[in-house]
């Protein structure tokens, strides 16, 4: 491998740039017109424009990506997550063009993207799957019969689906037909495939996934679990490793199953096998995420393995230089995803200039960041800004550290979910490890529930008054840096410019 083209943006592109640099591997990034000043371009060895702001014309434009790879002389492509990462047609195109796609083969990608086919594959390997249909129903009668057989409540799912799209919970037969029609309609428009099927609904499950690494020589290991049950609208927002619900025995059992699942798909490179974990300890295969995941850092923190580096080594044809017995989980790691979303206004995405940015620091704190102070958050892409990850000796210490780090972090100028995350970490149910997938619904629906303290209000009023006061040489203020009350913000035009 001579040079890697990183086809992504934001924090993950920065993450991959750094991995390449650590390895002495030349790399280049692509950027759209909206991202000329984005951090991944600033951090890159080389950057090449790929198209206009809309993702379809830039980060999702396969022809433009291939052309960019040729131009910069890259012989490998790292797709990050999202965008083209799990697009088997893109992987196939790379294979055809003689470019190394840093991920699984297009065949494996195609298999894991098809939920029904992967369920069949898992069943053949004795990987437990959620009881349900193995194909779409030929008519409503078949759906009705299957649902009655497995017992309500059931879940209607799109075979090509993901991210909760086209998913419907049905609690009684009367609602089944409407759910199937709705799901199939959404699936047709979102995924171009209207195939839907029914699964038994597991109530109050946890979402527990296993990281796997598989080289091209037949070696496959797992790097233990991540629990990602804290989800809002089916998007994970807080993740951790180890899971508070998995003990040593269950971990070994699930880990073995994950390795078997990956092998059954002919999977290579880094991937994640997702399971639903029921309250009674039984677990079911959900799907394979065929990419580096957003939450990969929690695994890196507890195992000490650099997963992006491993991805590059595996794609270069190297053998894994460790076996399962070499791997262990040390301490506890938690990740919070920092989104530009306003928890006070129905989590609407927030764009605009980052007026002030303070990163948390200290032992056991890692911040995978795609932003900087003064940067204008574009409206065109996913609102993820950064990920805050902490590592400590045990879960309680990690929680305390995360709480501290969230309080130490400040982003002003745009709305973020920082306060909301701090309240999740502080929640008693979270502290007790009761992190089922209904956590947000159950414990956060009345947010913000805690009234702000009078002391904090007074501090805010004092700060507001002082920020408007002056000009002054008081308080050690240096005239050069703060000549006037107008300059309370770097780069902001007072009274405008937003």
């Amino acid at each position: 491998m001579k040079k890697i083209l990183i086809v992504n943006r934001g924090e993950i592109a920065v993450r991959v740039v750094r991995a390449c640099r650590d390895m002495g591997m030349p790399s280049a990034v692509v950027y759209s017109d909206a991202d000329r000043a984005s951090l991944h371009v600033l951090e890159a060895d080389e950057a090449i424009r790929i198209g206009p702001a809309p993702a379809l014309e830039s980060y999702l434009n396969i022809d433009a990506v291939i052309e960019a790879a040729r131009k910069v002389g890259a012989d490998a492509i790292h797709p990050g997550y999202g965008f083209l990462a799990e697009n088997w047609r893109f992987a196939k195109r790379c294979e055809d063009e003689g470019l190394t796609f840093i991920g699984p083969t297009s065949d494996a990608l195609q298999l894991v993207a098809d939920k029904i086919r992967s369920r069949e594959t898992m069943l053949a390997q004795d990987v437990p799957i959620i009881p349900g249909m193995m194909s779409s129903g030929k008519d409503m009668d078949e759906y009705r019969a299957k649902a009655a057989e497995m017992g309500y409540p059931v879940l209607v799912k799109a075979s090509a689906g993901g991210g909760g799209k086209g998913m419907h919970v049905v609690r009684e037969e009367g609602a089944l037909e409407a759910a199937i029609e709705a799901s199939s309609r959404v699936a047709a428009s979102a995924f171009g495939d209207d195939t839907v099927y029914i699964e038994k609904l597991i109530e109050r499950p946890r979402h527990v996934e296993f990281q796997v690494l598989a080289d091209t020589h037949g070696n496959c290991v797992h790097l233990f679990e991540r629990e990602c049950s804290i989800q809002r609208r089916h998007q994970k927002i807080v993740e951790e490793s180890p899971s508070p619900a998995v003990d040593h025995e269950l971990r070994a059992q699930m880990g073995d199953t994950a390795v078997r699942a990956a092998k059954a798909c002919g999977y290579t490179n880094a991937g994640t096998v997702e399971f639903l974990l029921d309250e009674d300890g039984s677990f079911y295969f959900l799907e394979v995420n065929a990419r580096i995941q957003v939450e990969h850092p929690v695994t890196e923190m507890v195992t000490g393995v650099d997963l992006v580096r491993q991805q590059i080594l595996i794609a270069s044809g190297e053998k894994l230089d460790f076996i399962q017995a070499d791997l262990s989980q040390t301490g506890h790691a938690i990740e919070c995803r920092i989104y530009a979303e306003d928890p006070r206004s129905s989590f609407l995405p927030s764009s605009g200039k980052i007026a002030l940015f303070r990163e948390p620091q200290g032992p056991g704190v890692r911040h995978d960041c795609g932003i900087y102070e003064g940067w204008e958050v574009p409206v065109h892409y996913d609102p993820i800004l950064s990920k805050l990850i902490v590592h400590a000796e045990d879960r309680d210490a990690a929680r305390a550290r995360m709480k501290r780090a969230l309080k130490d972090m400040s982003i002003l100028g745009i709305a973020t979910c920082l306060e909301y995350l701090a309240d999740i970490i502080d929640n008693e149910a979270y502290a007790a490890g009761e992190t089922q997938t209904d956590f947000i619904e159950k414990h956060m629906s009345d947010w913000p529930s805690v009234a702000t303290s009078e002391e904090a209000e007074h501090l805010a009023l004092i700060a507001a008054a002082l920020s408007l006061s002056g000009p002054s040489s008081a308080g050690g203020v240096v005239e050069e840096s703060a000549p006037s009350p107008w300059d309370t913000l770097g780069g902001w035009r007072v009274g405008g410019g937003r």
Partner: protein
Amino acid sequence: MEFEFTLNGEKRRVSTDARRPSTTVTIDGSDYDVDWSRIRDGVISLLLDGRSHTVHVARADGEITVDVEGQHFVVGTGSRDDDSAVAAGAGGGGGGTIKAPMPGNVVKVMVEEGDEVTVGTSIVVVEAMKMENEVRSGVDGTVKKVNVAAGDSVGTSEVMVEIEPAE
């Protein structure tokens, strides 16, 4: 200086003489002894009874967002003491008098006498230390008098433009 702020829907009266590093801030009649230091743009260190609080502050039209150790407060900035240098431009008050926010140079005058303006209309751009500040109207009305032109230097609180507020 006196301020009338809005916080969580309530009016709060805050006054301070911030010229000294140790000052008294009065909130609705209660006094706080504050030792303060502006660390850099947007970052203020407060010591209250020896307790250290580093707060982060960002200003936008008519409001100030304050991050107090992870908790965000949006403070509405109402009308303030007329002698305040900032009264004219924060978008929330100051009547029809557009004053220079700081010593600097007028880069651009965006209005002429007789122009109709509304709240938020850009009136003058003043530049200082390579930073441009767009001063906007805090009222709806008609431009009565323009006292400055591009290239003029102005001093703090110098009246640049006068606006006759509409009814």
